[in-house]
């Protein structure tokens, strides 16, 4: 792995860590932060700092270091994680992201960037200086503490336990921690000592005059606490000196465990370091926890150990929690592998070719009518189908990741607008193609911002309308007949269709006497000419850049529609195909040409009633009576201007898209087939009604019918038809 590759990995890792840090921060803002969340935030900062150090990225290390120090204080409950701090930390997140993107673009950090670092660092350092002295908060408690138990029995050790983390400036102040340890030797016997090097930066990043080392000491002595404490009198300021007497209260050990660095922390070592537990006792405890099968029946490790009278449970539980958090992260890492997206694309392409080849083979088998060959080709087809599905599922990712990014957007925008808006997310487990997920982010952001900006009313208006003061924005995703639906809904004012209509007339988009359905009027806001600056205030402003939204969505073969109830809110519904590459198709024939209709949209096939068959030319906007329902239909033969006589019996393929139905009249129905969608060349891609093409097993080309655009075409034609008549 070259340095560049490693750097790339570092950048990706950083982005992921920042994402999880941001998520944890946002959740901390909503509810009081759990210890787990705080640890996650701290770990993210810590890991970024560590990795940056490996690459000698001093500017990142020094910046993250300050943030980490503040987070460490949060972790030790020295300062609360209050909203201002969360806000600051979010800025820190952004800034780290910025630092990383400079790295990605091989740009040297410029002045603006460094200035940004300095400002945030200044903000962070106020937290570092304002905090109460840690020694003051921990030591007095122990001073008068009775050695008897308070919340449990005392631990078994007969030794003092000293946990020393020196003030970083201790060396500069002319004191040497080693000399304190040497002096300690005169008061008793150092039973064991562990030198902690966790905070020691790499050689090139370290400041040789800063003290980085910490010590954990098990100390056997007859001296009293005041004597031992007095050893550290000179260094107490700014240092974390914990002195636990023999047979201390358990709570004090827990406090100590919690103040230990989180990484590389093996529980066994830790407890043995602390002299609290033997390895055997620990292993027994872990083993009995493992035997408990169902997760909801898992007893807290403390209970397990209490039952066995092994050790003071609280101590173990605290340590186990920590270890588990570290372990969880590791297993998550282990069960995922990174694959180059290009490799996946290549795989999908190959699977596509495989599908074509295998349908070619089945075709030959059918022609030759050899039972054995037929049997084996059908087995192959089935397997290929499975391969196709699993290959495609490799590209499927849950949309939750995209959704959770909006927590931040909603938070920031609502602060910017001075509105109180909460985000509700559902359907985050809905999966869709990775390329779609990547491309849907921008349009979604636009819709979300629009809803917040113009949809949800200011608090006063909401109160006046009798709505809850807090506005709600909902993101939802679900599957619907081979499509994925993503909804952005708000409980704001909704769209005013009269105003939109008037505005569109004013802009010259429509004629004043045009008759339009409610839906069509709403859709006007997606027209390019509609978005103008002065539309913002009055017209609830939707339409600012909305044409871009629609274009982006259409590029994904999707559509967007609006539902709105005036005064109650609006819903933007994005409908996207599940995947861009391969679909199940329904093969039909008209004359000599083959067409494929996406199978997901096909509801049923019927024969065109004979009474309808003859009547054609003049009365073009045909419809049939489908079990009492009016079903408009379109003749593919006429639509694509195919010559030749229609057969005596024609068939209707009934398709559905959204809540609309339509019939497509064709000559023959050929059946299902797996279709690899090949995009049309540039010359042809303006043709309406065709979404791509595919190659059949016989080697012939079939066009894929683009049902949505064909429906629009048909409706359009119907309108003109009516206008001509009237």
């Amino acid at each position: 792995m070259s340095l560049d590759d490693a750097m790339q990995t570092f950048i990706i890792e950083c982005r992921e860590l920042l994402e999880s840090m941001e998520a944890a921060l946002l959740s901390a803002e909503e509810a009081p932060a759990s210890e787990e969340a705080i640890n996650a935030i701290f770990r993210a900062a810590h890991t970024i700092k560590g990795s940056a150090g490996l690459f000698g990225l001093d500017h990142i290390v020094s910046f993250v270091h300050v943030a980490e120090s503040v987070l460490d204080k949060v972790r030790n409950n020295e300062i609360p994680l209050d909203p201002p701090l969360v806000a600051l930390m979010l800025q820190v997140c952004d800034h780290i992201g910025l630092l990383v993107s400079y790295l990605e673009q091989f740009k040297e950090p410029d002045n603006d960037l460094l200035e940004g670092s300095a400002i945030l660092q200044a903000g962070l350092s106020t937290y570092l200086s304002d905090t109460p002295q840690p020694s003051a908060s921990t030591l007095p408690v122990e001073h008068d503490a009775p050695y008897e138990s308070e919340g449990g029995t005392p631990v078994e050790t007969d030794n003092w336990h000293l946990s020393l983390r020196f003030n970083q400036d201790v060396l500069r102040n002319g004191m040497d921690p080693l000399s304190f340890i040497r002096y300690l030797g005169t008061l008793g016997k150092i039973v064991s000592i562990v030198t902690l090097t966790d905070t020691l930066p790499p050689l090139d990043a370290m400041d040789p005059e800063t003290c980085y080392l910490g010590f954990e000491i098990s100390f056997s002595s007859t001296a009293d606490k005041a004597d031992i404490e007095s050893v550290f009198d000179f260094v107490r300021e700014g240092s974390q000196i914990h002195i636990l007497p023999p047979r201390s209260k358990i709570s004090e050990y827990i406090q100590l465990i919690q103040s230990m660095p989180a990484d590389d922390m093996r529980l066994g070592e830790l407890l043995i370091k602390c002299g609290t537990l033997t390895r055997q006792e620990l292993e027994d405890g872990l083993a009995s926890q493992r035997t408990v099968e169902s997760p909801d029946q898992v007893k807290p490790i403390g209970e397990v150990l209490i039952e066995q009278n092994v050790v003071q449970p609280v101590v173990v539980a605290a340590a186990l929690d920590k270890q588990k958090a570290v372990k969880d992260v590791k297993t998550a890492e282990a069960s995922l592998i990174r694959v180059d997206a290009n490799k996946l694309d290549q795989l999908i392409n190959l699977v596509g070719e495989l599908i074509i080849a295998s349908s070619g083979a089945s075709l030959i088998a059918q022609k030759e009518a050899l039972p054995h060959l037929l049997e084996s080709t059908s087995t192959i087809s089935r397997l290929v189908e499975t391969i196709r599905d699993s290959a495609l599922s490799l590209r499927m990712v849950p949309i939750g990741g995209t959704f959770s990014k909006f927590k931040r957007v909603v938070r920031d925008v609502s602060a910017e607008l001075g509105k109180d808006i909460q985000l509700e997310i559902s359907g985050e487990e809905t999966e869709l193609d990775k390329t779609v997920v990547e491309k849907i982010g921008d349009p979604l952001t636009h819709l979300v911002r629009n809803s917040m900006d113009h949809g949800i009313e200011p608090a006063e208006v909401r109160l006046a309308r009798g709505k809850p003061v807090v506005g709600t924005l909902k993101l939802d995703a679900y599957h619907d007949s081979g499509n994925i639906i993503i909804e952005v809904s708000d409980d704001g004012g909704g769209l005013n269709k009269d105003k939109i209509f008037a505005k569109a007339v004013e802009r010259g988009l429509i004629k004043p006497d045009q008759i339009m359905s409610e839906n069509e009027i709403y859709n006007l806001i997606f027209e390019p000419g509609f978005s103008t600056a002065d539309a913002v205030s009055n017209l609830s402003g939707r339409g600012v850049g909305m044409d871009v939204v629609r274009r982006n969505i259409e590029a994904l073969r999707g559509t967007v529609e609006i539902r709105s109830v005036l005064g109650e809110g609006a819903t933007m519904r994005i409908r996207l195909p599940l995947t861009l590459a391969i679909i199940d198709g329904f093969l039909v024939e008209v004359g000599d040409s083959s067409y494929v209709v996406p199978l997901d949209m096909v509801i049923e096939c019927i024969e065109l009633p004979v009474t309808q068959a003859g009547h054609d030319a003049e009365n073009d906007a045909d419809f049939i009576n489908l079990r009492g329902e009016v079903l408009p239909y379109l003749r593919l033969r006429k639509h694509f201007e195919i010559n030749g006589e229609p057969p005596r019996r024609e068939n209707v393929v009934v398709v559905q898209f959204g809540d609309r139905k339509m019939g497509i009249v064709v000559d023959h129905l050929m059946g299902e087939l797996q279709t690899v969608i090949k995009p049309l060349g540039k010359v042809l891609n303006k043709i309406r009604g065709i979404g791509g093409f595919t190659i059949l097993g016989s080697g012939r080309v079939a066009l894929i019918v683009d049902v949505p655009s064909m429906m629009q075409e048909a409706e359009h034609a119907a309108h003109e038809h009516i206008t001509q008549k009237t």
Partner: protein
Amino acid sequence: MTITVNINGAMGHVVIEGEMTIFEAAEYHAALMPPVTQCHMLELDLTNVTEIDTSGLQLLVSAKLRSQQTGSTLSITGHSETVQQVLDATDLAGFFGDQVVLTASE
């Protein structure tokens, strides 16, 4: 203090004599950087170190950590009595993993 640095390709030999304390820490840090970053095999001779404090110790630890991460070798070929005492007192002798050679007089 004196620090003698010999770099011969990927091999390095560093002799430190005198005090290794906070007062010289910056100088040691600067002097150790090139051999530690450039050499795959680095020998540190601390036979004549008269005094070592936390700053000196953490420099050694950091250099050793770096060598472990990069897969190079850093070995301490000679320990003065002071160095040895400090390594013992901090239980870091095992971390460095060097053979401690005692002089005959002990």
